[in-house]
């Protein structure tokens, strides 16, 4: 039997992109994008089931999916389908409320087309980045995610959006070039062009022992800084609040919920090669240092945040730090960090969708402009509040357990780091709570009247939060097997 699921996913995104390019009918553009994301979700589930049952899925020599790839694929697919469903209604509402600047119907259609072309390309690049078997191809596709999203950040064509997009382009391009250099250094182990030039992850791992330990250490630092820029680890995080706050809400959700795990996965793939060559302590220390720094920076800034989308960006930096600490501690911490990645992607995406609903109602991303949301858009307000509790690790949400597991793993060997992380997480909680309560409760402005909320703007965040809650109590056996496999190998 041929395994064509992955090819089908890539073909469906290609067709959707082409249809968006050639068709002027908005409904065709929307439906083709929805079908593509649906196919991707179905294909990802099938592939993940196969990987859990039979091990690595490698239909062709240039594509392969291991347990880590399968979990990240699932995350991208779920967040992707939610973001596409949300995008359809979100763009319609923005059009109706004249938020998307346009100078005529034809110009408006071209903006919507542009959005969906780039969205489909972005999704396709994400799938390719985590499924290609060559580290250099993975680099090409991660770089392509920058190129496909930069115009999505500048989508509203305002000076601040251009500035955010420029920062994103420059900082990520530097990061990605450093990652390119790091990748090339890893290739010094393989000597001449092995396997007709296609140096795979497996070939690199097999040759790990041949690399000079000093070279591999320097190479991994370049990789960590390079792809870490894409993840948003401090101090390379500076593009993140700007890009997240200026991009349309569904794109912010994809950045935080899909791009972050994809870039993280690439670092992890290099981590196992580094660990094989120089032992795990070198990479683990890097994860701990950058993780702690990220949580500290987020904690310091979250308190004084004035824009709720920037607040979510800093929360993403904090959670990337927590995941890094989990991988740094190793053992059970790895299992918990992967679960944390899943929960974070779903909940943070739901929070971004809620932020989109706030923006549609209040026409402002400033925290001070949003008051008494519980009376104006009650379902969104409850979703945002639930998301806040979930993302900061309040029980019964899974993030509460993953944080406990990560910290308990490190308490023996890294007591002071664990203590520092607990203090910083508490600061983040208080800071986030201050902003969330200010937005949800209080007296809303008399100009803002309550209105019936659109079901299609509520369903995606509700579905993602429900999924995160479900996974907090029940992890399906196939997912458990995949996470167990990752914990053993990474």
């Amino acid at each position, binding site marked *: 039997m041929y395994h064509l699921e992955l090819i089908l996913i890539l073909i469906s995104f290609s067709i959707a992109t082409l249809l968006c390019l050639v068709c002027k009918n908005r409904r065709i553009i929307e439906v083709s994008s929805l079908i593509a994301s649906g196919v991707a979700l179905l294909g990802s589930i099938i592939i993940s089931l196969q990987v859990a049952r039979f091990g690595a899925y490698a239909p062709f020599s240039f594509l392969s999916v291991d347990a880590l790839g399968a979990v990240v694929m699932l995350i991208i697919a779920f967040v992707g389908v939610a973001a596409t469903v949300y995008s359809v209604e979100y763009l319609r509402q923005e059009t109706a409320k004249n938020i998307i600047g346009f100078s005529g119907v034809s110009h408006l259609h071209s903006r919507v087309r542009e959005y969906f072309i780039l969205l489909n390309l972005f999704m396709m690049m994400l799938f390719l980045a985590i499924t290609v078997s*060559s580290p*250099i*191809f993975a680099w*090409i596709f991660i*770089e*392509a995610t920058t*190129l496909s999203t*930069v*115009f999505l950040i*500048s989508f509203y064509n*305002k*000076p*601040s959006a*251009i*500035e*955010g*997009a*420029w*920062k994103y*382009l*420059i900082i990520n*391009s*530097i990061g990605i*070039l450093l990652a*390119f*250099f790091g990748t*090339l*250094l890893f*290739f*010094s182990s393989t000597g001449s*062009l092995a396997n*007709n*030039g*296609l140096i795979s992850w497996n070939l690199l791992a097999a040759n790990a022992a041949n690399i*000079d330990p*000093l*070279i591999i250490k*320097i190479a991994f630092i370049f990789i960590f800084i390079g792809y870490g820029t894409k993840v948003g680890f401090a101090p390379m995080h500076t593009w993140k609040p*700007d890009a997240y706050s*200026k991009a349309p809400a569904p794109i912010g959700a994809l950045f935080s919920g899909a791009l972050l795990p994809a870039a993280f996965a690439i670092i992890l793939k290099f981590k196992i090669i580094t660990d094989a060559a120089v032992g795990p302590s070198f990479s683990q220390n890097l994860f701990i240092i950058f993780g702690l720094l990220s949580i500290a920076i987020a904690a310091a800034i979250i308190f004084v945040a*004035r*824009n709720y989308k920037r607040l979510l960006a800093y929360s993403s930096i904090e959670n990337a730090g927590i995941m890094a600490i989990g991988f740094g501690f190793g053992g059970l911490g790895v299992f918990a960090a992967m679960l944390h990645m899943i929960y974070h992607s779903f909940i943070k995406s739901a929070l971004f969708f809620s932020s989109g609903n706030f923006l549609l109602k209040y026409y402002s991303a*400033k925290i001070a402009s949003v008051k008494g949301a519980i009376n104006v858009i009650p379902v969104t307000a409850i979703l945002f509040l639930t998301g806040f509790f979930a993302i900061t690790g309040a029980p019964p949400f899974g993030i509460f357990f993953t944080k406990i597991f990560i910290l308990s793993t490190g308490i023996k060997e890294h007591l002071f780091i664990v203590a520092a992380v607990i203090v910083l997480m508490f600061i983040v909680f208080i800071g986030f709570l201050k902003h969330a309560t200010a937005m949800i409760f209080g007296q809303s402005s008399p100009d803002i009247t309550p209105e019936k909320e659109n079901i299609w703007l509520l369903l995606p965040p509700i579905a993602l939060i429900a999924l995160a809650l479900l996974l907090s109590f029940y992890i399906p056996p196939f997912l458990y097997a995949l996470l167990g496999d990752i914990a053993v190998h990474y």
Partner: protein
Amino acid sequence: MDILFLKFLLEIFFLTIVFLHISKKNLDAVWAYTVQSLVIVVVLFDSFLQTHNISLLFITLLVLIVKVILAPVFFARLIRKNELIFSVSTYLNVPITLIVLAVFCVMAFSDIFSPLTGIISANQELLSLALSAMFLSLFLIINRKSALSQIVGILSLENSIVAFAIFAGLEQSFGLQIGILFDISVWLIIATVFMSMIYAHFGSLDVTSMKKLKD
């Protein structure tokens, strides 16, 4: 090609980056980048002469078209269209900039990076020079206030990495090189479009004039 000649070429490459740091006119910077890319083309052509690998010749031609012809043409058109004769200044003045460049060079030639520059011991000096070029390009992006200089800095960093890879024997296969070059071409187009957008919105390519995100 003689190692001395390769060293001479790499020295020209290195000097173009030093020139990029001190040049005052945008068009001069574009010329420096063109010369730098031409050096890469010559080195790649030398590799072709040694290996007789026809795909390498194809890559050399593509690099020539993208980096030596198209990129400078894009930039020159942008400069002429918007009359951007003079480059925006640097954060550090020229004497301090030159001192920083010297420190980076010492670092690249020091023992700290000897594991990298010693990948092929016969090419240690060339690799140290390529590594210096990388550091200097990175510093160019940080130190310059002009969006155009930042773009040229990134392209120069990419050229430096390519130079390092060639002398360290880390070149990639034909397909991968095409992929990388395609990526860079798309990046180049996007960056050029963005520069036009920045000029249209801010009336200047000075990145310090972009202060809309500070609210």
